[in-house]
């Protein structure tokens, strides 16, 4: 019974949190700060400039330029079930950093207080203090290290010293390129090749910052690591690059959060995340994505075109992606798992909510290459308003992936009668000892359920939040505690005004 008490506490607090929040998007404010921009548009000079701003070695500059060459030959993909006005790639700022960051601060104490305030306002702890993890085990201190990325630059990373003691490297990718070039050179672009796809290739040429993680062999990372992305400047694209390497027998849990101000014009976000997992190592990667979704008429918002991929390179390597997608005007995102090592495992848990005019085309790829590999996909898509929500997933069993298994569960929930849910599974099995299961359901939020809740005293929005959180339960449970609470609240906020 006591574990019930804990869980219950969480849910009730969530409801409280939801009630205390007003307005549909609460991170839509802007930080007024002097910025330094590179000229609009992209060309080899801009690529060189970004490289120079980051004090990069020659090999990195060359790598970027090669990517740019490649990008010039690529065309924007059109196969996704999303529709948006053509993007003018020459009308975007590719580099924007606060003026105060020109001289790289030695520690967070030296960072412009205005920038620090931004994160305080977002509720992101940049002070090295233990987080009180809500209701769960309050006697045990929980720490979360944060890398704060503001437009094109990382402001700083907390708990670096403590992590260093454990041998863990957690810093911005620009710092890693300077300080740990051997690791970056060995792994960068090996999971998502430079030529992978239009947006990943663009990112390879112009990425400005992002996070770098290296966990040494047989090390359990002593705390959760997180990166918080904030787009602040107008007409600016954010192109961040994350590289995580989990060496043999190591473990890390990594969290990613994102927000942006409300604006009338759409903004581009094209990130690449690469994860390398060696023998017996395990990585959990959780995202709560809360970009500004655009207004009710579909004006503004973030175009989120992201390539995320994990490579289980060693035997028995494990990866778990968990994502809660509530933001973005357009989402194009398929966190994938390459199960190369024998007995490796990939899991993907996703909640994608699309309200008003939002469009989401998201899912995963499970590429089984090694023997006896296992994957599991649990996708919960929720559509409301006039939104379109597509699950697109690929499961491939290669000839050598003997005795491998996949289980896919794909549930869609519709709120109202003007939205749509689509499921597009691609399944390829090239051996006869593997098994693939796919289950899909589509349901509507039931009037009887809502009336039942209301007859017990809950108002309509509380009732919808309760029913939808129930629908998402399996995925919410896969999130770390702090994120689970934030995600539950977000589910409710994203659906405000979707009924009645």
């Amino acid at each position: 019974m006591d574990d019930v008490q804990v869980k219950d506490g969480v849910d009730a607090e969530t409801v409280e949190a939801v009630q205390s929040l007003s307005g549909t998007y609460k991170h839509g404010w802007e930080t007024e700060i002097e910025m330094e921009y590179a000229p609009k548009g992209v060309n080899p000079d801009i690529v060189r400039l970004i490289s120079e701003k980051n004090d990069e070695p020659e090999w990195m500059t060359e790598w970027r330029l090669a990517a740019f060459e490649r990008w010039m030959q690529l065309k924007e993909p059109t196969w996704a079930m999303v529709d948006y006005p053509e993007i003018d790639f020459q009308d975007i700022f590719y580099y924007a950093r606060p003026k105060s960051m020109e001289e790289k601060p030695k520690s967070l104490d030296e960072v412009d207080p205005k920038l620090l305030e931004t994160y305080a306002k977002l509720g992101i702890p940049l002070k090295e203090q233990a987080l009180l993890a809500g209701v769960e085990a309050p006697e045990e201190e929980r720490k979360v290290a944060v890398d704060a990325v503001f437009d094109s630059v990382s402001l700083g990373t907390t708990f670096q010293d403590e992590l260093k003691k454990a041998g863990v490297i957690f810093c911005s990718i620009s710092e890693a390129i300077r300080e740990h070039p051997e690791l970056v050179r060995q792994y960068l672009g090996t999971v998502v090749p430079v030529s992978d796809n239009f947006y990943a290739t663009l990112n390879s040429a112009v990425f400005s910052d992002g996070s770098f993680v290296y966990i040494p062999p047989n090390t359990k990372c002593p705390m959760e690591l997180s990166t918080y992305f904030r787009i602040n400047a107008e007409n600016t694209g954010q192109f961040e690059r994350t590289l995580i390497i989990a060496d043999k027998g190591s473990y890390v849990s990594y969290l990613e959060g994102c927000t942006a101000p409300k604006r009338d014009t759409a903004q581009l976000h094209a990130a690449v995340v690469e994860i390398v997992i060696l023998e017996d190592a395990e990585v959990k990667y959780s995202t709560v994505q809360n970009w500004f979704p655009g207004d009710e008429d579909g004006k503004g918002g973030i175009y989120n075109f992201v390539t995320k991929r994990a490579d289980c390179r060693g035997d028995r390597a494990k990866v778990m992606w968990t994502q809660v997608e509530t933001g973005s005007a357009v989402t194009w995102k398929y966190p994938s798992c390459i199960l190369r090592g024998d007995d490796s495992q990939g899991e993907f848990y996703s909640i994608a909510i699309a309200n008003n005019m939002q469009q989401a085309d998201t899912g995963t790829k499970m590429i089984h290459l090694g023997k006896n590999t296992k994957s599991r996909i649990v996708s919960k898509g929720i559509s409301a308003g006039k939104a379109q929500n597509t699950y697109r997933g690929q499961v491939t069993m290669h000839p050598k992936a003997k005795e491998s298994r996949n289980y896919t569960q794909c549930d869609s929930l519709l709120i109202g009668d003007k939205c749509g849910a689509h499921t597009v599974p691609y399944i390829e099995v090239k051996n006869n000892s593997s098994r693939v299961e796919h289950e899909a359901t589509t349901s509507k939020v039931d009037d009887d359920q809502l009336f039942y809740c209301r007859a017990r005293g809950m108002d309509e929005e509380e009732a919808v939040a309760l029913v939808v959180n129930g629908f998402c339960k399996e995925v919410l449970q896969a999130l770390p505690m702090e994120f689970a609470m934030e995600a539950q609240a977000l589910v409710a906020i994203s659906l405000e005004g979707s009924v009645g």
Partner: protein
Amino acid sequence: MLEIKNLHVQLEEEEKQILKGIDLKVETGKVHAIMGPNGSGKSTTSYVLSGRDGYEVTEGEAILDGQSILDLEPEERAAAGLFLAFQYPVEIPGVGNMTFLRTAVNAQRKARGQDELSAGDFLKEVRAKAKTLKIDADMLKRPVNVGFSGGEKKRNEILQMAMLEPKMCILDETDSGLDVDAMKLVAEGVNALRDGERSFLVITHYQRLLDYIKPDVVHILYDGRIVKTGGPELALEVEKNGYADIIAEVA
């Protein structure tokens, strides 16, 4: 406690008159029963009083404790002290029974301007009340009504009633689908809530539930009207002779 005056109701989708002028007054602390054959308007009465969509009140009113309720939202009626025990309790997958209860209790407390119950106090109360209804810890953990047997669902309704402490309880065919033992358990739960202050409207097709929940007044509903009112003996008469005699009397 509850006064229904000349209540006329039709379906919203088709212009079909279901209730054709109901008058009823349930006094504080009393138990009234509504009996009637299928299609007489019993369930419609409970749904209209609790505020379900799909019905249009064309005439008349309902007053709960001095307050007219037919224009209120369902949650406002609940906060005002009205409770409907559903004939078919609804399943809500993924939502723990306990979470549901606590959300409901605190929503009502909030609507009434009271402080929320602390996790500890809430838990203590739920455990005590669940015990008397033979609801075990496992049932409190499971998702609301999902995979519950008929008896478990009805006991769960009574647990909700016990936790929400309404002034006016409507029981819609609570006996349907229950065997005698389950019915006794449910009836005991209801009787434990009879405290001389709380009022009940027990809607039932059969007399047998009224052996366990003793009514003060029995009404016979037929074709959208109350055609006869009497004491507990009226229920026995129905049990013995069916509705035909009474209907013939008024026709």
